[in-house]
């Protein structure tokens, strides 16, 4: 009997292609919206997490300052010194490398081409703290670091703009009034999402930058790499204790430096994107319910329109349950069909949008299954009322219906 009912439903849907299409449109859009929103949300979350991870995991960024920003009023907290870097490296358990950073901006010139970029003064520890490959060349020698020689490793953006992607190692560039040898080129790292283009940089020994560019010995940022076997909270707290002591902060007074854990940033970022995804999905889910109501409306109209047909079926000997089942199965088949088309549409939407949004393409089987199941349930829920109305028709009245 179920096979027969199914057959009747399919026939009826086939005979009214336009009506069927319009009926399922709401479900198609609803399912497509839910699936694509959830999938794109997940992709965005993953992309954000990947970007933060590209900064390196197990890294603490330490900056002078109070809270976020410098706080109001008081004197500007002192920057770090080279001695602080060494102390952290030697005295905090679990720390594997500490890279100081002194930043400046400069215009770099090669062969008549100008490019304004960020100069990062640091040590070879910079490459130990975080994974950042060289595409060619080498890092600094101890002699270059100690003497503060004019050597530099350039980021991909700088390489593209000055050398048009050509070989840069061994060339000499001008950097303000310094003549500087390019000894290495960096692999691309991409947008940091919040930090701008990470590849738009030139890395030089910190001594060189301090002496010839900034003109002071201040260090605005230190990157502290630590062994993943250590608890970040413990590393952070012993780092805090050490810095408070070195900076002579009274007990009870606030820190005049900030420590950012990249893992924490990841968590915050992921939390935000997850929340946004949930909100957008909720809106999409409403459209799915509206789609279900659309099915109910069309099925109700369909029952009225097909009253005579129902009368014929009843006269021929269909029992009420069979008529109910026919209309119910029709609604379920329609909504599942809508669900399937919606899933296909969602994949197309995702495939089109992921490159535009610069997020990875992912296929989330779970949400596809859930959305399809919901579309079937909608068929049952919103198909039942019209089906019951059809089944309760009086055959004599139904046959007389014009």
């Amino acid at each position, binding site marked *: 009997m179920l096979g027969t009912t199914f057959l009747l439903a399919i026939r009826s849907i086939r005979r009214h292609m336009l009506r069927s299409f319009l009926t399922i449109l709401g479900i198609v859009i609803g399912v497509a919206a839910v699936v694509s929103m959830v999938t794109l949300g997940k992709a965005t979350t993953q992309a954000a997490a990947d970007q933060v991870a590209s900064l390196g995991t197990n890294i603490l960024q330490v900056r002078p300052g109070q809270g976020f920003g410098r706080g109001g009023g008081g004197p500007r907290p002192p920057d770090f010194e080279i001695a602080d870097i060494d102390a952290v490296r030697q005295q905090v358990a679990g720390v594997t490398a500490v890279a100081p950073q002194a930043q400046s901006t400069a215009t770099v010139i090669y062969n008549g081409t100008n490019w304004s970029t960020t100069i990062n003064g640091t040590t070879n520890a910079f490459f130990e703290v975080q994974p950042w490959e060289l595409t060619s060349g080498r890092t600094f020698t101890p002699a270059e670091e100690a003497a503060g020689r004019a050597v530099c490793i350039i980021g991909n953006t700088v390489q593209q703009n000055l050398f048009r992607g050509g070989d840069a190692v061994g060339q000499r560039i001008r950097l303000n009034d310094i003549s500087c040898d390019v000894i290495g080129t960096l692999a691309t790292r991409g947008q940091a999402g919040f930090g701008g283009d990470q590849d738009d940089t030139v890395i030089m020994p910190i001594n060189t930058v301090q002496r010839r560019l900034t003109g002071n010995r201040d260090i605005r940022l230190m990157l502290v790499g630590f062994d993943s076997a250590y608890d970040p909270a413990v590393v952070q707290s012993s780092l805090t204790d050490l810095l408070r002591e070195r900076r002579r902060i009274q007990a009870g007074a606030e820190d005049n430096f900030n420590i950012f854990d990249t893992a924490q940033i990841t968590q915050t970022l992921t939390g935000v994107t997850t929340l946004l995804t949930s909100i957008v999905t909720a809106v999409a889910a409403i459209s799915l319910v509206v789609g279900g109501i659309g099915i109910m409306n069309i099925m109700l109209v369909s029952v009225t329109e097909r009253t005579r047909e129902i009368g014929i079926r*009843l006269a021929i*000997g269909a029992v009420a*349950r069979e008529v109910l089942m026919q209309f119910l199965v029709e609604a379920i088949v329609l909504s599942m069909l809508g669900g399937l088309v919606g899933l296909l549409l969602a994949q197309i939407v995702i495939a089109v949008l992921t490159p535009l949004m610069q997020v990875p393409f992912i296929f989330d089987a779970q949400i596809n299954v859930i959305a399809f199941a919901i579309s079937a349930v909608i068929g049952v829920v919103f198909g039942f009322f019209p089906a019951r109305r059809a089944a309760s028709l009086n055959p*004599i009245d139904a046959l007389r219906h014009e």
Partner: protein
Amino acid sequence: MAARVAGAASVADDPIIRLRGVTKTYGEGATAFQALKGVDLDIAEGDFVAVMGPSGSGKSTTMNMLGCLDVPTGGSFLFKNVEVGHLDRDQRALLRRKYLGFVFQGFNLLSRTTALENVELPLLYRGEDKKTRHELGMAALDKVGLAEWWDHTPAELSGGQQQRVAIARAIVTSPAVLLADEPTGNLDSERSVEIMELLSGLNRDSNITVLMVTHEPDMAAFARTLVHFKDGLVERIETNQKVPEPA
């Protein structure tokens, strides 16, 4: 009349249909309308009955009841010795499915559906498999002379052809009784005669009891028994001797 009914009951085997004091009232209280006021009627198996009468005489109400689409308010309606008034909606549906075939004035075929699919419809509800449905459906279409038209939809068929498809649908289950409600009402006289000859043939050759409502004496002439209704009662019953008695 009552004597004749009693006589028929005593002579023949039990009639396939027996009405005794059947009443039907629509509505309640002051607005109540009594459509049937106590109908007595026996219909023998294999008979060809024409039900006649002016509109409002109760003939349509009686046909609805005989088609088990409706139940009497009072009195007794035995179909094959089963009291139909005691059956519920679904039981009556099953009874229709098994024993009855319907032909309507307006053909009532499913649109956008081929002749064969229309004819197969009752078999679908009987749970017949695809092969059986096809064979029986084609056989029924063949009986009404439309086997070649099996894949045409109602819109592609003439009125006479549509009514023949409807007859094929009614007889595809080999019913005991075929109920025809003004089957020639929408057809010209030539087509009407064709339809009547078809019904006569089915009555004669397939031993199907035919109950037909009509108000055209020409069509009623094909029937053996003519039942005249008036004011909710059977006015008189005639026997047309030109039509041979059922075997």
